[in-house]
């Protein structure tokens, strides 16, 4: 891999880390009720492939912080209990704040992009 490509890939990794949690909460809010493997599939479809070893610890923290609620359900035929996640009221408020911050950041970036094109 060339140095430039490695640099770009590294930047992409860093920036994705920054908005992964925001996108994760957006997915859970949209789906209302969803479990880990499904979340991974949705993120992959969105062009944000995420490692399982990254996702589950984040879900664990968000649940401990009261941002997400979780409930175990066992599917009769297979018997694998699955942990379903949903947004709490506190989580919805946090998501609203993240949304505002993200929008503000995007506006600043777009302003700079316009100036660079002048």
């Amino acid at each position, binding site marked *: 891999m060339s140095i430039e490509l490695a640099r770009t890939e590294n930047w992409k990794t860093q920036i994705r880390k920054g908005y992964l949690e925001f996108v994760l909460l957006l997915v859970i809010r949209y789906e209302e009720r969803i479990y*880990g*493997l499904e979340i991974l599939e949705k993120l992959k479809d969105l062009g944000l492939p995420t*490692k*399982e*070893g*990254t996702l*589950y*610890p*984040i879900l*664990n*923290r968000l649940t*401990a912080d009261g941002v997400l609620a979780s409930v*175990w359900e066992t599917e009769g035929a*297979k018997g*694998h*209990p*699955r*942990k379903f996640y949903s947004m709490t009221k506190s989580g919805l408020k946090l998501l609203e704040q993240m949304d*505002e911050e993200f*929008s*503000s950041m995007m*506006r600043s970036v777009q*302003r700079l992009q316009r*100036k660079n094109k002048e």
Partner: protein
Amino acid sequence: MSEKNPQNQDLENYLARLEKCLMSTSVSERAEIITEIRSHVLDAADRDPTQGVRGVLASLGEPEVVANRYLLERGLKPSKPPKGPVVKWLTIGFVSTFGIAVVAVLILLSMFTPLIKVDEKANRVVILGGVIDIDGDAGKIRIGDTNLHSDKEKGKFEGTKKITPSKHREFRIDMEVGKIKIAPSIDDRLSFECNYRGKLADHDLSESNGVVDLHIEASGGVDCNVKIPESLDLGVRVETGTVNVSDIKRSVSVEIETGELTFKPETKTKYKYDATVRTGTIESFDSSSSQNGVPVQFRIGVGKISKG
């Protein structure tokens, strides 16, 4: 199921290693994590039989690494893998070399003593033996060989904005280098008048969610006079420079990385002060113990806070 037994044994071995690394969590939390990972591996292996349990475990990563991610996310200390003797001695060698380098840097820094000199009488802050020189009385800032406040003014910009108290709650100003003076306006208009030196890179007044933002970038520094209506809270962020705030009745937050703040309290307002100067001096302010005290927060990296 018998052909899957070796793979299920791999799964159980993996989960046992994972559980061992999660001993700093509670029993119930550990059980939930193990159950969820087991469920994930079996589900993923069912969906993609070509991968199987071993493939899913490989994708998950080493159990020690996964466990440490859980612990780090929760602010707990990650578990350390045991180090071999070669690694141990390499670490000792590296740390020793680093220690020698730190001592060398400290010796070099001591050549710039005093690191920071605050002359209250002359109203001046001198850092690193004069590398940065802020003269509050003359209103001059010098960084290295560059005078940011010369007598030659290059340009000026100004603006006003009508403030509606129900719509606007805070004014924030963000500046790289320069001098700002902020005082209350006599009406409901926010106004600013700035002289700049060098090239004006960016100057932008925007509004979002009740906050009015003024962002300024100028290579030679800026000298601004700002008037804000009484209904607005104030936030100021300056990289290098001087800030002068007087008679503001609402909450104030000022952050200066290097420089000086002069704050003149409004005579009839009771304030609750939260002030920190990492390196420098700070005058004492009378903080109100009342619940209704107006919150005021100052954060200075290197410099001083004076009473106006």
